[in-house]
């Protein structure tokens, strides 16, 4: 019972102080799971991050589910996931309703006008970091990553569904790297 309460607190704090989505939450979860509650060692946590990064989908919920299960089985999973996603989802549904209601309000439009360039800039930074990671020039076959990127750009121009591109590139990576 105490474990469940600790799980709830740990993921509530980590997720709801983590601005910037999944990756921003990782150090906060580490502080809770490794340093505060000693549910796992640093190196176990590092392995968990490697696995979570290899699987698709949101990273925060994958880590929450794994740690929750290790600490307190299925009830642990439910508690850790609830703490991770519920508070902000509820708040956003409320905000989304307001957004729809006041969509034409001048104040809201002005705020959104102000924030959109920042969201665009954030995306540019994420794209840049992913690109740096993807095109690391340290191996012979690296021009292949450029070829993959260029083909993806062309395919997108012809409106190929992104998930097709993802699947194709996973298979390609398996065979060429």
């Amino acid at each position, binding site marked *: 019972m105490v474990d469940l309460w600790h799980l709830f607190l740990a993921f509530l704090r980590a*997720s709801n102080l983590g*601005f*910037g*989505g*999944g990756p921003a*939450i990782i150090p906060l979860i580490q502080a809770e799971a490794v340093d505060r509650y000693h549910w796992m060692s640093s190196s176990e946590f590092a*392995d968990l991050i*490697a*696995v979570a*990064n*290899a*699987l*698709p*989908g*949101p990273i925060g*919920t994958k880590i929450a589910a*794994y740690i929750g*299960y290790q600490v307190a089985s299925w009830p642990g999973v439910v508690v850790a*996931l609830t703490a*991770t*996603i519920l*508070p*902000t989802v*509820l708040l*956003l549904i409320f*905000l*989304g309703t307001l957004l*729809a209601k006041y969509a034409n309000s001048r104040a809201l439009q*002005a*705020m*959104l*006008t*102000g*924030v*959109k*360039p*920042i*969201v*665009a*800039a*954030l*995306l*540019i930074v*994420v*794209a840049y970091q*992913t*690109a740096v*990671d993807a*095109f690391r020039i340290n191996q012979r076959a690296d021009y292949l*990553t450029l070829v993959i990127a260029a083909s*993806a750009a062309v395919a*997108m121009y012809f409106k190929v569904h*992104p998930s097709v*591109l*993802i699947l194709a*590139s*996973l*298979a*390609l990576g398996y065979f060429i*790297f």
Partner: protein
Amino acid sequence: MVKIIWDLFLAFLRASNFSFGGGATVIPLLKSEVVTKYQWLTNEEFADYLAVANSLPGPIVTKLAGMIGFKVKGWLGASVAILGAIMPTTLAVIALGGLILKYAHSPALEAMLKGVRPVVAILLLQTAIEMVRESLTHKATWVLGTVALIIMFLWPFIHPAFLVVGSMLLGLVLFKKKD
């Protein structure tokens, strides 16, 4: 009714479970489902939702799933969209647990991830370009975006939340009269 619930589930299942790298990498995939395929939101609404979702903490996929699911079909829609987004990988992590941990550093897995990264980068870039187009409505927005970009590259330790909230307040001051 059943159809739209199923569509919501599928849309978030696909978008979330084809996104590698967590967080923002899901945005291009989600946009292609929600705006292009099912047309639940317009381009502009999607940009609005993204802006609001970014102003709050927590994982971005579940925030967007909650908002969009709720808009399309109320509480049921929100629940179904979130389930679609998190269930498969959650179950995978739990069921395979130790087994996957063993293969975390396997060469085959790393090769596949190496293949997918350039595609993710291009997808993100394209979404970023669209967001830029969507956001540059006034001369001052050019300045805001450029300044934000410079701050993020020069001082990466400054929390994006400050930029997001700060720009909303600035927006209120700068753009209210002109509109």
